[in-house]
């Protein structure tokens, strides 16, 4: 019988392999066509099966809860959400060149989850985490973070891309297309993060008696939200589009990363802080 942890540790290396196929595809001018995309789709499906299996295993252990309660589990879900959203984007835009920058992200997240010393076992839920709002909160937050990760990749590509000089037509999408991708990902991320903050507030109101208590993790998610709100408004202002907007979006993603990992250095209520 295959266990979820076997699937998840194998998947880590598969993501690296998928990344290589995307890389090779760029180097040979997309002659591999849709092979990398199909590989990524299969990987994501198996990854999803791994998550479902972990859910099922928690019931066999008698704990019975959705696999979103520890840092390890959140990383597993985060990497899945990144590749799922990226696949949707690829399907909409029919362009595979962003894959070279995006596929390393689930690989890195999974590798960190697998090789660091964090607790990987299925843990029973402490009383504060026993809430359906928690499931809604974690899913919406991480879907938001995943969209921001892809926005980050598109901004990096935007900054790396040189202006076209009538040479052979480049495979990398034009700057306008990259801006469009960034905008769409910021919109999805912003709406999801807003939902994440709201469901988190509802949960806190039920569990701790106050919907907002300026706990560092809360505050950092608000900081992230404020930065991306300013990204949305900067886009409406002349003189702020292009390079500046890309940099502001990248700052936004740095806030995401700090909200996720950095806050654990500060004391607070969130459970990941103690794991």
């Amino acid at each position: 019988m295959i266990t979820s942890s076997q699937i998840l540790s194998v998947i880590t290396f598969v993501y690296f392999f998928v990344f290589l196929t995307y890389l090779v595809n760029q180097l040979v001018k997309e002659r591999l066509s849709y092979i990398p995309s199909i590989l990524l789709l299969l990987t994501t499906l198996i990854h999803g099966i791994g998550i479902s299996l972990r859910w099922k295993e928690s019931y066999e252990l008698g704990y019975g809860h959705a696999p979103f309660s520890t840092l390890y589990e959140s990383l597993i879900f985060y990497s899945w959400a990144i590749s799922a959203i990226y696949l949707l984007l690829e399907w909409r835009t029919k362009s595979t060149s962003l894959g070279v920058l995006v596929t390393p992200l689930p690989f890195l997240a999974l590798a960190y989850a697998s090789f660091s010393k964090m607790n990987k076992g299925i843990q029973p839920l402490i009383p504060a985490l026993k809430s359906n709002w928690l499931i809604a909160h974690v899913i919406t937050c991480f879907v938001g973070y995943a969209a921001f990760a892809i926005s980050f990749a598109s901004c990096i590509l935007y900054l790396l891309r040189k202006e076209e000089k009538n040479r052979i037509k480049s495979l990398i999408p034009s700057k306008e297309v990259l801006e469009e991708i960034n905008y769409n990902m910021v919109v999805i991320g912003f709406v999801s993060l807003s939902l994440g903050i709201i469901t988190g507030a509802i949960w806190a109101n039920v569990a701790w008696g106050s919907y907002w208590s300026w706990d560092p993790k809360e505050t950092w998610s608000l900081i992230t939200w404020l930065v991306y709100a300013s990204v949305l408004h900067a886009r409406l202002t002349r003189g702020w589009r292009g390079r500046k907007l890309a940099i502001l979006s990248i700052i936004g993603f740095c806030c995401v990363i700090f909200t996720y990992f950095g806050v654990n250095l500060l004391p607070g209520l969130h459970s990941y802080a103690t794991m």
Partner: protein
Amino acid sequence: MGYKERDFWRFFRSVKLTIILLVVMAIFALIGTLIPQREEAARVVQFWNPKIMEIFFRLGLFDLYHSLVFRLLLLGLAINIVVCSLDRLPKSIKLATHSLGPAPDTVFERPIVALRAKEMEPKVFMEKLKKALRLFGGKVQIADLGNRIYGHSEYGRSSYFGVYVVHLSVLVILIGGLIGSIWGFEGYVNILEGDVIDTVELRDGKSVLKLGYSIRCDEFRADFYPNGTPKEFRSRLTILNDGEELFVRDVLVNHPMEIDGIRFYQASYGTILYGAIFRFLKGDQIIGEAELKKEMQQTLPNGLKVELKDLREDFMGRLGPAFLLRLEGEGLDEKEIWVFKRPELLKMIPQEMKASPRLDPSTILPYKVELKEVIERQYTGLQVSKDPGVNVVWIGCFMMILGFFLTFFYSHRQLWIRLEWDKTPRLLVAARTNRDHAGLEHRVSKVLDYIRREIAEREEI
């Protein structure tokens, strides 16, 4: 508008100001996570240099989120939103109500396609035209001008107002927060198992809230998983009015109890040292036992008066539970003596201290005291809070999400089809949207598929 008002208006209308305010607030919030705030500050600053602490305190850096500067930033944002919305609303209303009329030839100056239509019965054609428009969705209108037939279908005019709903929602949430900070409160109460309370100490530390009813804690239970992780905390509470039992409630983490808008949350638990059972000897003779709680007094059969004057959870922070007894009796003047649960720990303190009269058992000779049993009682810690603004905040959150959907995932889309007869029947299709052109194309392509299959014969250049 006067000169000054115009300047005010121009300043607060600007989206650049919005960007600056949002970024400044983000930086402000960031600083708040680096400097300890409120309770955290109270705990940490004792290790700080007092001069630096004084400066930080004066500047309000230990309570940034309630500081005047932060409130001014929020106020600025609110004015910014109001002014900006009022400034733009007329234009949006115009856009949302503007109509090109039943036969707009301007939109066909740049059609998406021009097709040669099949010859067919006018009635059949009308049916198919309607079907095509319905495929697009929205409100369908047809105008028959004899030599030209116009079909129009549109939806999503409300999308012009999505942004206003989002911005209004920010105001509603801020107002909800304000209501909570003015009329709300937060407090805390510990109830010993079996005890009854009718007041709650508020968090500002100054005031006490009279509940108007009383709460008895019948039982507190903490359950654990086999590996020691907490599983469930549960308090069984009985609500009483003038001693009469009204109802019983179980309060668990994530399952608070609400009475008249005041909510009680399971927040903590613990035990307190309550008293002890002592055994008294005179020489080697047992003269009696006494079960005492604080400030309780008892007289033993031989006339020895004993009183529990004080008790400590952890004497000097390392010697464990201790009880101060006052003894007075035949052959003994009034004496006080500390009795320890774990006397062996007394080895940890220096000899001179042990010589202090209240620690020295020889001072009460010929009497001796033994600690037979420590009595502890469990209490449940409840957080008590009232926030009349919380529902306003939820309404604001709901509006925000609704506004996002109107703004981002909905748009005003229009489709026009014109049939004209010159020598042959000719079909022109045009479409417009206020955002998301890719989405429009996707939808129009579905309609075009149908038209090419059912109505048109071939493309016309």
